């Protein structure tokens, strides 16, 4: 667990865990009947952690994140983010969390600066404060030169950095990043990793979903693996590797890939195209 957890112990903003769910369930009405996307997820993420949420495609990662971020209704169970019940007080929860979802959701017709100023205004900042905060964030993510260009001309890496910045306008206590490096080249991926570490270094809890196992290994204090809508493993990367090594009596320490494959009941042959490894 990160030393930030200890530092946060005295932080009046943090009374309980950063994220806590009990029996979280999501059912959809599909064409072929009810789809059970999430089937009773219990999670506890401590303040100050970088928490990795892994799973194969369709396992329930994004659905869980969308429930935690108030974008999707909860079928049953409870979810609290930064001490707030997201189902009961969604607006209060929104003020405490930042959200950057898959494939940076940005408005291509605005400039980077306009987008950040608008986002600040949506968090009730005055026009002057919004302009000042936008400038700070542009400097932070190294987009000052491109600030007054329209976003449709930005590269994938620039868009991802801007998306990160837009999730930080209100200095959230918990930052949700849904597959933040999907589709990025290795250099841009490294930049995003650095940003995530820096944001966490300032005390923000990061809840990160990813399909890249090396990313989780590099960044995360703890991880959980979801499969078929249920949590099948949870712990630090080191704990999970040791547990697998001991259980299977392996001579060498397994990789996080091996942990993932074991947890999801898949083999390397079966999951070709599902599990991707990156060497950033």
């Amino acid at each position, binding site marked *: 667990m990160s030393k930030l957890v200890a530092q946060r112990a005295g932080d009046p903003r943090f009374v309980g865990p950063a994220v806590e769910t009990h029996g979280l369930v999501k059912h959809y009405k599909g064409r072929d009947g009810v789809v059970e996307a999430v089937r009773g997820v219990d999670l506890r993420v401590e303040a100050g952690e970088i928490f990795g949420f892994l799973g194969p495609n369709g396992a329930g990662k994004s659905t869980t994140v969308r429930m935690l*971020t*108030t*974008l*999707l*209704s909860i079928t049953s169970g409870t979810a609290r983010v930064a001490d707030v019940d997201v189902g009961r007080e969604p*607006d*209060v929860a*929104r*003020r405490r*969390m930042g*959200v950057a*979802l*898959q*494939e*940076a*959701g*940005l*408005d*291509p*017709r*605005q400039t980077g600066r*306009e987008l950040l100023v*608008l*986002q600040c*205004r*949506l*968090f*009730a900042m005055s026009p002057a404060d919004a302009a000042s905060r936008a400038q700070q964030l542009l400097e932070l993510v190294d987009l000052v030169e491109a600030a007054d260009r*329209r976003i449709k001309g930005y590269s994938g890496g620039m868009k991802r950095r801007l*998306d990160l910045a*837009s999730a930080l306008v209100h200095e959230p206590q918990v930052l949700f990043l849904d597959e933040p490096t999907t589709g990025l080249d290795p250099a841009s991926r490294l930049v995003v990793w650095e940003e995530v570490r820096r944001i966490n270094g300032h005390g923000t809890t990061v809840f990160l979903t990813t399909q890249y196992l090396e990313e989780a290994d590099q960044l995360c204090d703890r991880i959980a693996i979801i499969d078929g809508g249920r949590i099948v493993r949870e712990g630090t990367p080191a704990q999970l590797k040791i547990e697998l090594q001991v259980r299977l009596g392996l001579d060498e320490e397994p990789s996080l890939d091996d942990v993932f494959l074991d947890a999801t009941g898949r083999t390397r042959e079966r999951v070709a195209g599902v599990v991707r490894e990156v060497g950033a």
Partner: protein
Amino acid sequence: MSYTWVLGRRALREALRTPEALLPTLFIPMFFLVVNLGQAGKIFPSTTGFLDGQNYAAFQLPSSMLLAASFGTAALFLVEDIEGGYFDKLRSSPVPRTSLVLGRLVAEVVKGLGIAVVLVLLALPFGIHVASGFVGFLLLIALTALWAVVYVGFMQLIALKTRSAAATNSGGLIFFPLLFLTPNFVPRHMLTRPMEVAATFNPVTYVMEALRSLILQDMVWGRVLAGFGVVGALGVVMVLLNLRMIRHYD
């Protein structure tokens, strides 16, 4: 209201930065005005009773104004926001859900006013004048802008429900039957009986007749109020349905 206005300004900026979407809303209605005038202008000279001394272009202008106000491009921009993920970004902010849909409708009022003014100015060279005077002119553009809100409200419902550009675009085509089930080419009393009945049940008829009375006649309050009444009632329905839809949006 401040959140609504902040989002409305963004929607206006979006419209101004997409002239390729804005220009057809002027060009196509003007095209229909010219074509309809060319086809029927000689049949209905300015001495025709229902033209009140103006030419047939004055009779046709309301159809063009309603057409211009019925493009619903704001709803297509909304679908782009949904498909691109920006709508979720907006939804994850602590903004009242109502502002997320009202912002675009407020922008549509402003845009509708602008388009209506430009259309009337473009129509002046055809010899058209607004017989009801300056107040009538203001009512003319206000009614057109409010109709634009009604129509975009309808298109937004389709956008929020289907989240599909194709479905939203197709939904827009509903206007064409409504436009032609009106006293589009001649006054209602000159229509065949079945068409007259259809036009009487079509709410667009009352908006068109209100616009037409403002152009051709001095203030005929009965007609004007009927038009505003229809637009007001439909506007309330559309806003309420939009609010319901956004509150249940998952």
